[in-house]
Every structure is written in structure tokens, then in C-alpha cells.
């Protein structure tokens, strides 16, 4: 790493311009990615703070830390903030924004100004959400079920609904930008079969964002109308049907889970070949399974409603379809595992997170089989079993993938290396803390502890104590990376252009890249994950 001196003088997207204006009015996808990084980290810690309060309240069976109403607001706002203001934008808006143009050899996204607009929409939505939180909060649950949300709750439902509506537009515009960019801005020679699978995953994600998000947008608009003007569209006391709300809500909110997990899968699919020094096993199947998940993911929403009063026959249909969507997820897990066979595996921080991802996602996915089985779903739905299941997917899966990606591309983003041993340590802490927090919740769920309970019968206490203990460990695991990332920006070792010896166009340009990414538009003549021809880092430290 003798290039430190050279590095310091290079012009990069970070030092090209200075001043607050150069950031707030930037159209550079990399700077917008950093704006997103700061904002979603802020919301992540807000949501995490609520989560810790929830866990503390549940330390004892009695409702003794906060009032019942406060508790209800805590889990509602934890859900809303984490889902709409952290998980959905997390990987697409930060890593996707940064990497999609770099990976396909483009100078920027197709619509840089729309990209900036989508960040501003996110910020406006975030301010509305924060305002609704500080002026009283919302207590409907993040699911907004009617008629509670429209006719009974007396909290800030309208404002929170509109905040999510606006954030939905931000999400749609990001997805739109990605699809157009991937179709129209690829460098010469970057054919569809040479695209990194990270791009395929983002393409699939964007399809969901484009076609799913508008449905929840209109649904929330109708909820807001109903509440504001006293209508009865979803209120059974006035002729409406609350199940219609649930259908429309889950039409988006089930695929939304794939908005969170698909990009994570994309990240892991980049990391595993790199640290096994191998081509990905079954490129075409991994790519196709991303699209398969995006499409099939839209056909299964009512498995959230098996006990809600839908017809027996439609429950059968949705259960059957739910099993179909499990197949492409299984394909991915098998392919990742097979990629390791006869590889040359190194245990770096991103790879540890990727291992963690596969493990936790596998468990999350397998417990999904329980929930799709009608007979078992009746017993465990709306219990802690569901909480555990979706946290295994959304935290064990999506957040692990996000951290894996942050560590993998941090040298490219910041131009600095983070302390490797701390990274590994934090990865371990996160993995242990996560399992201790959420595994007991599977057991609680089958025992019958319902979700959203402020107080609970005493026989559930032991497992709840374990879970709370785990959550404090998990919190440490999340704070650590933030600290050493910040530290590394100033004190970290300067990063070479390709510290991991990774394939992919983003590693052929300098770290951090210049504003226009590449000196000249690259011409791609090789397949993706061409590790046969890329030396591992010890042998050639810097340039490809």
C-alpha cells in the first residue's frame, strides 16, 4: 500500500468541491448516496432506540417502564421508521446509488436531478415522520389496519400516512432511475449476461418499487381521506370492508420485503465469488431467481390474512403460491454454497457478514415455510413467531447484507480501509447478539405470546429476558461499525483501487472515484466474476 502519497493528491468526487451547497445541490450519484447514507443512519438509530425501549419494557411481564399508549406508539414508530425510512432505502439508495453506474460503466444515473429530487422527497417525508413523532406519535401499528386507524385512533395517523406516501415517491423515483440506467446506460460490451448479479438484484428490486409502491400510496391516500372526511371506504361500520384495506396494503407490503432482501442477496452474490476467488455457480439461475422472486412475490400477499376472514378457497390459493416463491430463494442459497466448493476462501469482514447472511436468511426462509402452511399459520400468526421470522429476514438478512456491502465497498466509497480486526469482532457481535435477541422469539411465538403486547403472562418472562439481553449486545454490534467507519475516514489506511482483488468495473477506477467515475468509458470484454484472470490481492496489490 505504498500508494498513500499518490492517493492524497488525486482529485476525487469527495474533494472536487467543498461547501454545503456542493453537497445539497449535487447531482453526482456518489454524493447523493452519501447524503442517503447519513439520513438513513440517522433513522436507523431512531428506530433502534425505539426497539431498545420496547425490549426494556418487555423485560418484566408487567407494563412498568412506559404507559400502554406509549408502548403502542413505540412499536408503531419502530416499524414505520425501520421499514419505510431505513430498510427500503437502505441498500438501493446508498449502495445501489453509488454502485449501479460504476458497475455498468456509466458516468451517472440516467436522471441525476430526479435522483437528487428523490433524496429531497425522502428528507421531506422524514421530517414529516419526525414531526408526527415529536408531536404525539402514531399508535396504529405500522400496518395501519382499519377501522382502528381511520375511526378509532386519535393519534397523528394522517401525518404519518402522508409521510409514508411521500417516501413512497422517493422509492419509486429511485427504482425508475435504476431501471432506465440499467437499460440505457451500460458501457459497450456490458451485455445482460455480463452484468454483475448485484445489478440484476437491483433491477428486480426496482420492478417491485415501480409496480408495488403506487398501490400502497393510493391506499394510504384513501385512509387519509377516510379519516379526514369521515368516509367509510374501509370501515365496516359504514359499509366498507377492512379486508379490502388489508388486501391493498399487503399487495405492496409483502413484496416490500423483497425490496429489502433482494439487494442484500445481490451484495452477498458479489462478496462470495470475490473471497472464494471463483465464478459464481449458476450465474443464469441466480439472475433468473431474482426476477422470479420479484414476480412471484406479488402473488402471495394474502398469506398475511389467513385468519383475517378471507375465504377458505383464496387462502388455499395464496398458501400454494407462497410455496412457489420459496423455490427461487432456495436456489440462491444452494448456489452460494456451491460457489464455495473448491474455492480459495479468505475470511475477511465482508465474507463473515456474508456467512452470517446465508445462515440467518436460511433460518428466516425455512420458518417462512411454517407460516405459509395454513394449519400452522393459524396458530403462530400475530405471535412472536412472526416477529422472529421477519426479523430473521429483514435484520438477519437485509441488515447483515447491508453491513456486508458497506464493509466491502467502504474502501471504494471513502478511499480508506477500516480496521479489519474490529470489523471481524463487530460481525461476530452482531451475529451472536442477533441470534440471542430473536431466536427466543420463535419459541415465545409457538408458546402463544401475541405480538404488540405491552404486558404478558409471567411464564413468558425467561425468554423475553434473553431476548432483551441479546438486543443490548446487538446494539453494541451496530454502533461499533459506525464508530470505526467514522474513525477510518480520517485515520484509516488509504485504500488501493482494488483492495480485495475483486472483479467488476467499480474496482477498475480509482478509490474514491472521480466525479465522472471513469477516465474514459470502459469497454467490457470479459464475463462477470472473471476471477480466473484477476490476481488475488497479495500478488498484485493495486492495479488490475
Amino acid at each position, binding site marked *: 500500500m505504498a500508494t498513500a502519497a499518490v492517493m492524497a493528491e488525486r482529485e476525487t468526487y469527495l474533494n472536487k468541491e467543498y461547501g454545503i451547497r456542493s453537497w445539497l445541490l449535487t447531482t453526482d450519484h456518489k454524493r447523493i448516496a452519501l447524503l442517503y447514507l447519513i439520513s438513513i443512519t440517522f433513522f436507523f438509530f431512531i428506530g433502534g432506540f425505539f426497539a431498545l425501549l420496547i425490549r426494556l419494557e418487555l423485560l418484566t411481564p408487567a407494563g412498568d417502564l412506559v404507559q400502554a399508549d406509549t408502548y403502542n406508539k413505540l412499536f408503531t414508530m419502530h416499524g414505520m421508521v425501520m421499514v419505510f425510512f431505513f430498510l427500503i432505502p437502505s441498500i438501493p439508495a446508498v449502495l445501489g446509488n453509488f454502485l449501479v453506474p460504476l458497475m455498468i460503466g456509466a458516468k451517472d444515473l440516467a436522471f441525476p436531478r430526479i435522483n437528487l429530487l428523490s433524496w429531497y422527497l425522502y428528507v421531506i417525508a422524514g421530517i414529516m415522520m419526525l414531526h408526527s413523532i415529536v408531536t404525539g406519535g402514531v399508535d396504529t401499528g405500522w400496518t395501519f389496519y382499519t377501522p382502528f386507524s381511520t375511526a378509532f385512533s386519535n393519534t397523528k395517523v394522517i401525518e404519518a400516512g402522508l409521510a409514508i406516501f411521500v417516501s413512497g415517491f422517493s422509492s419509486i423515483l429511485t427504482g425508475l432511475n435504476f431501471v432506465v440506467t440499467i437499460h440505457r446506460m451500460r458501457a459497450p460490451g456490458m451485455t445482460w449476461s455480463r452484468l454483475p448479479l448485484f445489478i440484476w438484484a437491483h433491477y428486480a428490486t426496482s420492478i417491485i418499487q415501480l409496480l408495488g409502491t403506487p398501490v400502497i400510496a393510493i391506499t394510504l391516500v384513501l385512509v387519509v381521506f377516510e379519516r379526514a372526511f369521515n368516509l367509510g371506504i374501509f370501515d365496516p361500520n359504514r359499509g366498507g370492508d377492512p379486508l379490502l384495506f388489508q388486501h391493498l396494503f399487503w399487495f405492496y407490503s409483502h413484496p416490500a420485503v423483497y425490496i429489502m432482501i433482494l439487494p442484500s442477496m445481490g451484495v452477498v452474490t458479489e462478496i462470495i465469488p470475490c473471497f472464494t476467488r471463483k465464478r459464481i455457480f449458476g450465474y443464469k439461475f441466480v439472475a433468473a431467481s431474482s426476477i422470479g422472486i420479484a414476480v412471484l412475490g406479488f402473488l402471495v400477499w*394474502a398469506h398475511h390474512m389467513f385468519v383475517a376472514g*378471507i*375465504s377458505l*378457497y*383464496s387462502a388455499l390459493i395464496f398458501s400454494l403460491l407462497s410455496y412457489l416463491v420459496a423455490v427461487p430463494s432456495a436456489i440462491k442459497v444452494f448456489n452460494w454454497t456451491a460457489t464455495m466448493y473448491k474455492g480459495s476462501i479468505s475470511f475477511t469482514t465482508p465474507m463473515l457478514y456474508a456467512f452470517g447472511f446465508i445462515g440467518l436468511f436460511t433460518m428466516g426462509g425455512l420458518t417462512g415455510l411454517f407460516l405459509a402452511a395454513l394449519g400452522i399459520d393459524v396458530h403462530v400468526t400475530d405471535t412472536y413467531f412472526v416477529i422472529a421470522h421477519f426479523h430473521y429476514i429483514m435484520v438477519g438478512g437485509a441488515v447483515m447484507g447491508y453491513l456486508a456491502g458497506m464493509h466491502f465497498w467502504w474502501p471504494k466509497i471513502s478511499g480508506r480501509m477500516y480496521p479489519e480486526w474490529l470489523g471481524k469482532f463487530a460481525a461476530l457481535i452482531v451475529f451472536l447478539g442477533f441470534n440471542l435477541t430473536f431466536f427466543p422469539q420463535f419459541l415465545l411465538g409457538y408458546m402463544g405470546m401475541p405480538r404488540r403486547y405491552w404486558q404478558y403472562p409471567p411464564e413468558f418472562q425467561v425468554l423475553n429476558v434473553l431476548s432483551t439481553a441479546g438486543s443490548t449486545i446487538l446494539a453494541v454490534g451496530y454502533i461499533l461499525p459506525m464508530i470505526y467507519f467514522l474513525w477510518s475516514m480520517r485515520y484509516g489506511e488509504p485504500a488501493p483501487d482494488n483492495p480485495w482483488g475483486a472483479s467488476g468495473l467499480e474496482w477498475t477506477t480509482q478509490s474514491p472515484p472521480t466525479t465522472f467515475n471513469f477516465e474514459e468509458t470502459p469497454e467490457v470484454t470479459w464475463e462477470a466474476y472473471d476471477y480466473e484472470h484477476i490476481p488475488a490481492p497479495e500478488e498484485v496489490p493495486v492495479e488490475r
Partner: protein
Amino acid sequence: MSEHIKSEHVMSSKMYYGIWAALMCLTVVTAAVSFVDLGPLNTIVALVIATFKALLVVLFFMHVKYTSEKMTKAVIVSAIFWLFILLALSLADYTTRLLS
């Protein structure tokens, strides 16, 4: 990026006027037919006419007939397909509730 070259088709204004006239006629027809009792066919006729009108607008006013761009058609088809998913699977619940 050679796939992106396309010639822009400038349609004759006569064609536009023709489409416009057809749309106006269909509007009058659909309004008039609604006063005739065709039983359940009323709805079907109204929707068929509406779809035909929409097709005229999409194909000619929005130039989809003359675009060499395959993606445009793919986008339209998938949006309609997704709308179909939403309607069909929701109705799968509503139409079978009384059976159980």
C-alpha cells in the same frame, strides 16, 4: 448502444384527425349504448369501447405502433399484467367468500 438508434416517425396530420374522429364517434356511441338495455352486456360493451379508445390513443397518439423500442410495449404489458394480478387475486377472495 447501437440498439438505441431509431428513426422518429412523423405521422401525417390526416392520420391524427382520423383517430380523433374515431374517438369522438366512440364516445357518442358508448354514451348512447348505455341507454339501451343489453343486460349484463352493457358493462362489457362499455369496457370494450373504452379499451378500443385507449388502444387508439396508445398506438397512434402515443406512437407505440411506430416505435422500434421493444421496451415500451414490455412496460405496458407488464403494467397491465400487474393490474390484472391485483384485481384477479383480490376477487379470488371476494367471489368465493359465500361458498364457504
